[in-house]
Structure formats: structure tokens, C-alpha cells
């Protein structure tokens, strides 16, 4: 059960971040050429992997287990609550819905307006691709390290990230049309629920709590965050409707 939950959370969270990175690479590739977009993206992937290899073992191997859980839980809480906040605001109509396709269109328009690339290396395009993929990749790395930080959870977190990589690469190969059909806002809200549940679970364990039903606590914590999010969306959407009517 823990293996599946950790893998699903890692796959969904990593997949969404990878989709956002893909949108940037596609935009740079179409506007300025795929050779430079892929060069920038590849350099960013190498930088993120090296950073994770340098920091990860030191983070996961050198600390006391309770302290490690507290740190990991806190990082997951920061990510989870931010994703939940944005997801609730989007679902309630207080913020624009999330769409990698829209980001792709905006990025392409912005790059199209820039100075046209010459025959040589397009460093501006490479930099845009590098920055986008580096930031999204760093988030993938942090989430995978955090989810995989507890004993026995590194394998499912890595498998989840690998599954996400395969799926997102397949979407990239079939070009950008599938980006339009993904319910990204709902997916991000779901990831927020999962990360907040994992974050609360690990943080409490780091503080010496023993959860009733052990790892199954993840399920009732996820249920608690999901119900609270649903209630918050309803309440905020009602206020938006009332404000629009007056």
C-alpha cells in the first residue's frame, strides 16, 4: 500500500512539473529551433541530476531519522499547501485555470517577438529552455527526494518519477495537442492533497507521533485535505457568484 501511494504521488507530482517543462521546451523549439531548445533542456537536466546526486545522499544518509522526517515533512507541507492554495483558488474562479498548453502558447508568442535567431548558436533560446527546465526539474528533484527520504520509500518515488518521465516523453513525441485535454487544475489539486497528507504524516512522525492504523493514516489524512479543499472551493465560489451578482 505504501509503495503504491508513494509511487502514485511521485508520478503525478513529477509528471505535472515535467509537463510544464515540456511546454517551455516545445515553445522554444517551435519559435527558435529544436536544436537549441533541446541543448538548453539537456544542460538543465544534467545540472539538476548532478545537484540531486550531490545533495541527496548527504541529506538522506547523514541525519537522524526523526530529524530527517521533520525536514522532509516540512518541505512537503510547503509544496503541498502552496499547490492546494492555488488549486482551490483556481477551482473557485479566483485565479486563471492551470494550462501547460496556454503557457506554451504564451511562451511561443513571447519568443516569436524576440530577435530572430541567427545561423549560429541561439544562446537566448538555450537560456530560456535551461531556466524553465532547471526550475521545474529542481521541483521534481525536491519532491522525489522528499517522498523517497523515509526508509523504504526511495524505490517507489524513483519508479513514480520514471513512469512520469515515460508518459510525458510520449506526450512530447505526439506533439503538444494532448496538453490541451489534460485536466491540469484538478490534477494539481490532487497532488496538493497528496503532498499535504504526506507532509503532515512525516512531520508528525518526526515529532514522535504514532498514527492510528500506521501507514493507512495517509489515506484518512488525504481524505481530510480533500474534503476541506472541496468545502473551501464551494465557499469561495459562492462568494464569487454573490460578488458578481451585486
Amino acid at each position, binding site marked *: 500500500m505504501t509503495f503504491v501511494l508513494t509511487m502514485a504521488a511521485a508520478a503525478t507530482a513529477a509528471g505535472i512539473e515535467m509537463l510544464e517543462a515540456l511546454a517551455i521546451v516545445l515553445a522554444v523549439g517551435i519559435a527558435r529551433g529544436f536544436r537549441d531548445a533541446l541543448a538548453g533542456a539537456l544542460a538543465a537536466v544534467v545540472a539538476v541530476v548532478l545537484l540531486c546526486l550531490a545533495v541527496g545522499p548527504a541529506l538522506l544518509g547523514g541525519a537522524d531519522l526523526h530529524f530527517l522526517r521533520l525536514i522532509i515533512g516540512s518541505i512537503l507541507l510547503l509544496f503541498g499547501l502552496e499547490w492546494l492554495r492555488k488549486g482551490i483558488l483556481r477551482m473557485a474562479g479566483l485565479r486563471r485555470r492551470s494550462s501547460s498548453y496556454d503557457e506554451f502558447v504564451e511562451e511561443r508568442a513571447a519568443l516569436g517577438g524576440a530577435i530572430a535567431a541567427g545561423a549560429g548558436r541561439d544562446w537566448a533560446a538555450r537560456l530560456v529552455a535551461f531556466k524553465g527546465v532547471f*526550475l521545474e526539474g529542481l521541483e521534481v528533484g525536491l519532491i522525489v527526494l522528499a517522498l523517497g527520504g523515509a526508509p523504504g520509500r526511495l524505490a517507489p518515488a524513483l519508479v513514480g518519477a520514471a513512469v512520469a518521465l515515460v508518459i510525458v516523453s510520449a506526450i512530447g513525441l505526439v506533439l503538444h495537442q494532448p496538453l490541451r485535454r489534460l485536466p491540469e487544475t484538478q490534477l494539481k489539486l490532487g497532488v496538493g492533497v497528496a503532498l499535504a497528507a504526506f507532509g503532515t504524516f512525516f512531520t508528525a512522525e518526526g515529532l514522535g507521533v504514532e498514527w492510528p492504523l500506521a501507514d493507512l493514516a495517509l489515506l484518512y489524512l488525504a481524505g481530510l485535505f480533500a474534503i476541506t479543499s472541496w468545502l473551501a472551493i464551494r465557499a469561495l465560489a459562492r462568494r464569487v457568484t454573490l460578488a458578481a451578482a451585486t
Partner: protein
Amino acid sequence: MRALLASLRRLILGETWTIPLGVGAALGLAVVMRAWLPHATWQAVGGFCLAIFVLAVLALSLRRAHRGHS
């Protein structure tokens, strides 16, 4: 460079200070409760207390965001 640092800050801490400060306050409150409550009681109910604090942080961040829009 400054834009990259700002993006990194947003990436790790989020768009507002409410959530990082709120999570810090929730952790601080949980540590105080752990010291104050008997060990067995904390082991049994501490997780639920933390969950309530976390939900309070989420509610506060939504309230501030909603105020910003209205």
C-alpha cells in the same frame, strides 16, 4: 540572476509568506504541545493536532488571497 533567485524563492517558499510562516508557526506550536502534554497523549493525538494547525494555515492563506481579490 535576480530573476532566477526570485524564481527559486517562489519555487521553495511559494508565492506568499503566509504558508512558510504559517508552517513554521504550526511546527513551533506542535513542539510546545509535545513538551507540555504527557508523552503517551502526544503520541496518540499529536498528529491530529498538527493536521488541524496545517488546515488553519491553509484557511489563513486562502482568506488572505480572497481579500486580495475583493
